[in-house]
């Protein structure tokens, strides 16, 4: 499989990366692994660092062990995550380094957030906006909110959302959602 950071060359090794308190395991090429290790080294605060020679290897090793064991525990659960639309699991997508469908971006958002920020040094699109796709996206957001409101029996909110959907026009599927 291809490196999950640069997506250019074959992955040869594994690195661990902490994102929002969660440790992710990434298959990467040697070059990215080196870059990642350089980036990580200065960060961990060493509790027993007492001066010039005090950078002892022992606490560092302890941290690495902690991190490694934590991943072993987590990776089992992570494999089960699958995209609800195309059914592709995290493991499958990583093996081929291709996502299954557009909805995978939601399903694997945690992993992708890190990968995307590494690949592009950015996480927010600033460019062309296709009007039709934008309207479809807005409608979908409202539909999701409407579903939530109905399930939570927040009918006043639901009515407001339904009216907003009505203004967007186009899709008829918003009607009937309020029927019990």
């Amino acid at each position: 499989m291809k490196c999950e950071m640069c997506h250019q060359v074959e992955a040869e090794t594994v690195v661990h990366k902490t994102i929002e308190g969660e440790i992710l395991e990434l298959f990467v090429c040697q070059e990215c692994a080196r870059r990642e290790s350089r980036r990580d080294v200065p960060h961990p605060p060493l509790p027993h660092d007492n001066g010039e020679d005090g950078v002892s290897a022992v606490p560092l090793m302890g941290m690495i062990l902690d991190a490694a064991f934590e991943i072993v525990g987590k990776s089992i659960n992570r494999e089960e995550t699958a995209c609800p639309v195309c059914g592709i699991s995290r493991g499958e997508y990583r093996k081929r380094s291709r996502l299954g469908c557009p909805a995978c971006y939601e399903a694997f958002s945690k992993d992708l957030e890190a990968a995307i920020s590494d690949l592009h040094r950015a996480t927010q699109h600033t460019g062309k906006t296709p009007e039709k796709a934008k309207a479809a996206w807005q409608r979908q957001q409202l539909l999701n909110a409407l579903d939530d409101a109905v399930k939570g029996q927040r009918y006043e909110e639901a009515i407001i959302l339904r009216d907003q959907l009505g203004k967007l026009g186009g899709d008829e599927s918003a009607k009937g959602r309020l029927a019990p």
Partner: protein
Amino acid sequence: MRMTPDVDASARRTKTVSAGDIAMSCRVRLARNLSDERFPDWATECDRERVFAKVRAALETEKTGATLEPVASFDAQHLEMLREAHLISKDLLEHAAGGGIARLEKSQVCMMVNEEDHLRIQGFSFGLDMQTAWQRADQLDTLLERQLNYAWSPRFGYLTACPSNVGTGLRASAMVHLLGLRLLGELEAVVRGLERMRLLVRGIGGEGSEAAGQIYQISNMDALGVSEETIVQRVARISGEVVRQEHNARVRLVQEMPLVLMDCLARSLSVLQNARLLSTVEALEFLSAMRLGAALGFFTRLKVFDIDKLILLMQPGHMQQGMKTSLMSEERDEVRAGFLSRKLAHVKLKG
């Protein structure tokens, strides 16, 4: 665009190298996908055929003037020729079901359907005229987005099969011939500098070999968080800087090591005129030297464009098409050597 060389008069006696002599061509590619479909790699044949049909309908409704044909309807040789001209990719040929090639009449636009993404819209132009290449791709994309439900989110922009293309889905690339920098041993430093500026440098040309003929493609790494215009301008600007460096390298070659340069040109011409067997990669190496010599005006009756044509025509697909027959690999090497020696028989090294 003419380069203004900042060198002394002795170098000015050699022909002024124009940007087009170094920057061969450029392209802007847009990756697009349909929102309710699996990406091609994970799609069934049936899914892929459906995507093909949707795209064909959209092209017709918008009266784009484009013709979309299934990959399967082309013969193998023509597909090979399209690949040799870098109009389509190997990837497209590998999964043929639902794969399609569209071209826009009277415009340098070629679109692949069901390659890595549902759509790969490519606009082309000469030299470093990336703005034109971008406008060409953008125009077709703008027509298609009125018909097709593109996969797009406000956060990540255009959603692509590989996260490395997400955002604008845009890759702007320039094809440049950097033999001068290579001969002076300065190419590596230039490539490293480009990578620091987040530009990707890839050799094209030979199969497997890194950069046969010292032809490279320079393109953007980042597709998210920057506007299309910014990416296009940036790649064009920095590629222009590389072209300037290559130009200076050529001027220095002429000034500082004229004998080495002339020897290299004479040997290349001699091999191409006299060899009996030439592989594609080998021929490309010698044609690359000829290209540099032609740009410097060292050959009689030989233009850079003539060499560019030969580079294309001596590729296996093009050659077999010219012969109207298919050949074994050894036969091809023989035919290629004969072809090149005929085409270059009249060429002489000046002085």
